Structure formats: C-alpha cells, structure tokens
C-alpha cells in the first residue's frame, strides 16, 4: 500500500483542537489531582484511624482498578446517582483528578516517610506548633522530594487522558480516530497522533531524570 502523510495536513486544525483539549484536561487534573493527592497523603499518615482507613480504601481502589472502568463508572453511573447531568468535561475532570489524586498521594506519602524522625524531634525541641511543623518543615522537604515522581505522574496522566476518547470526549485520540475512520487512512493518521503524544511525553520524561539529579544534588544524598 502507498502511504500519503499529506492527508494529515488537511486536518491539522481539528488535530490541534483535539490536542488543546488533551492539554487542557491534563493541566486541570494535574493541579486538582496534586492538591487532592497531598491532602490524601497527609490523611494516610494521620493519627486518626478513621481518616487513615478511608483514605487507604480510596487510594487502593483507584490504583487497583483500570482507569477505563473508573471513567465508565463516572460517565454513566455518577449522573444517575447524583441525579444531575454532568458535562463531558466535568466528568472527565472528576475521573482523572481522582486517578491523579490516588497515584500522587502515594508519591507524597513516600516523600513524607523519607523525612527523618530527627526533623520532628528538632521541631519538638524548638517547641514549634503543629501548623508551623507542617508548613515550614515538612511541606517544603516533602514537595521537593516528590517533584521528580510527581512529574512522571503527570506524564502518566497525560497518557491516560487518551482514554476519555472511549467515552466520546473530543480529545486528540478521539479526533484522530474520527479522521482515520472517515478517510480510511488509519496508518497515516494514527501514526501522526502517536507521534504527537510522543513528542510531548518524551521531553517530559527526560526532564524527570534531570530534575531527579538536581533534587538529589540539592538534598546531598
């Protein structure tokens, strides 16, 4: 068969719109998901057993089921349960934020754990109130240590966001599939779509390695 990649150029605006949707969705969910993840990470290390149990169930459940199932559940079941119509974007944001919250809470938990007990001893010795302990001692170190893993979580989220095409959200994958079905040129269109994802995700993964080295150097470990 002959390949003709110029066909993709005719649809560049549609693909750009799809890409914009993918990026928008990813960015919103990164911000919301990281904040959720940090609170859940704190909850999992809290002294209240109830808070610990509830947050563990949430995290284990979202890490233990396929994102596709979560998406379907939120797209088809949540509106029935809540009794309100949710827009595509809202459902997508809810689903991916919950997913991002679950994986980044694990990241934060690991980085919280890595802060040595001597730091807390020092806080006690200095008689710092709990609030200051969290905001001025624990938070800066935990966030710094979490940055590389959080970045790779963002790359995962960017990749998982392609799943929303299965529930009919017009992201890059959805637009690509539509074009390939209508033009009967799957090889060209889908290859270009894959390349677009790659071109964005690959530099990010390189950045993860760079940032990791920086952070390690800064923490001098």
């Amino acid at each position, binding site marked *: 068969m002959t390949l003709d990649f110029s066909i993709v150029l005719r649809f560049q605006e549609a693909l750009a719109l799809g890409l914009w949707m993918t990026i928008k969705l990813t960015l919103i969910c990164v911000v919301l998901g990281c904040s959720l993840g940090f609170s859940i990470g704190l909850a999992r290390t809290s002294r209240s057993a109830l808070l610990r149990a509830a947050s563990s169930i949430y995290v284990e459940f979202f890490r233990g089921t396929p994102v596709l199932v979560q998406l*379907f559940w939120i797209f*088809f079941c949540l509106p*029935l349960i809540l009794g309100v119509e949710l827009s595509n974007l809202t459902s997508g944001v809810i689903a991916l934020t919950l997913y991002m919250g679950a994986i980044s809470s694990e990241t934060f938990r690991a980085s919280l754990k890595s802060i040595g007990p001597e730091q807390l001893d020092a806080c006690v010795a200095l008689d710092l109130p709990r609030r200051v302990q969290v905001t001025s001692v624990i938070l800066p170190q935990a966030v710094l240590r979490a940055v590389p893993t959080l970045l790779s979580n963002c790359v995962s989220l960017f990749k998982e966001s392609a799943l929303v095409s299965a529930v009919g959200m017009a992201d890059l994958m959805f637009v690509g599939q539509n074009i390939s079905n209508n033009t009967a040129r*799957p090889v060209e269109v889908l290859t270009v779509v894959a390349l677009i994802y790659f071109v964005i995700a*690959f530099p990010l993964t390189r950045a993860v390695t760079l940032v990791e080295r920086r952070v390690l150097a800064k923490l001098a470990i």
Partner: protein
Amino acid sequence: MDYSFDFQSVSFGPLWEGLIVTLQLTIAANLIGIVFGFPLALLIMSRFAPARLPAMLFVEFFRCTPAIVQIVWFFYCVPMLFNVFLGSMTMGIMALGLNLMAFNAEAYRAAIQAVPREQLDASIALGLNPLQRTLYIVLPTAVRASIPVLLTNGIGIFQQSALVAIVAVQDLMYQAKTLATETYRPIETFTVVALVYFAVSFPVSQIVGYLERRRQLIMS
C-alpha cells in the same frame, strides 16, 4: 437519590467468560514481557550503537505514548502495513506484550545496573566468558531484584488489558459494556466489574508490598 439498585440483573455468566479472556491476555502478555524484556534490556545497555539505538527507540516509544493509541494503532495498522490478518486475541496479546516488554526492559535495566561491580570483577577473574557471565551471574541476581517491579508491571498490564474492549476483544470490560447496555443497569454492572478487577489486583499489590518490605529487611 431515588435509584433502586438491582444487582440481580448482573448476569455472571458473560462476566466470568470475560474474566477468563482478560486473564488469558494478562498471562500471555506477561510471558512475552518477562521473557523478551531481558534481552531487550541487554540491547539497551549494549555498547554497540546500531543495537542500542533501535532498542531505546522501541522502549521510549512504548513508554511515551498512551496504551490506547498503541492498541488502536496495532489493530488498524498492522494488518494494513504488513498484510497479515491475525485473530483479535493474538493481536491483543501482541500489543499488550510489546507494551509490557518495554516497561519490563526498564525494570531489568535498573536491576542489572544494581548488580554489584565486584561480582562482575569476580566473574572475569574466574575466566567466565560474556555469555556465561550474563546467564549465571547477571541474570539470576537481576531477575530476583526486579521481581517486585515485574509484578507491579504485570498488574499494570492486567488493568491496561481493559483497553482491548475498545477494539472488540471480548474481555471483562467488553462484556461489562454489553451487559450494561442490554440491561440498562450501568451502576450495578460497572460496580461489580470494578470490584472484580480490584479483587484480582489488590492481593498481587499486597504481595509486592510484602516482597519489598522483606527485601529492605534483608538489605539493611
């Protein structure tokens, strides 16, 4: 909320068949990933650029594009490009297997790099040739060290296997979609299916946690 639940409408027959298909996909893909991931890792680490570059490109490509794109690409493009027509099950296994191969290769690479330098020195001192060194020194140590990550990747592919439902392989997710549409009971169906996925992957992830803790104890 005025929704009355009806879990009776979830018929377990099709879901059971779907689960079997999902497990078959998972196991076959894991076999491919575990077996071929190792040589791929050796290729990535090779000093010979014509061997290293394609292998690295392969790994990076699978790690940096969404799995759904890979699967859809595989199902649409491989038959057109290479003029081969395989059953959907075979295609699904190959797509998932190649994906897992890339991720496992990275796991093996990290483990190989963690093999202590002294062991390699010792094997050279004993006059082992490179093949023997790889088979008897590097392979056993690296495989044992990478088991937790391999298991994590294995559950990952179990979850990713739900994606083949999109290209109409009749796995658990596909049966769930069909059942939900037939019975108009999405909440019950998808909840049950989510629980099934959870029931399989949760124990495995607990085992991973246990293995990692034990490893840390041994190391310390």
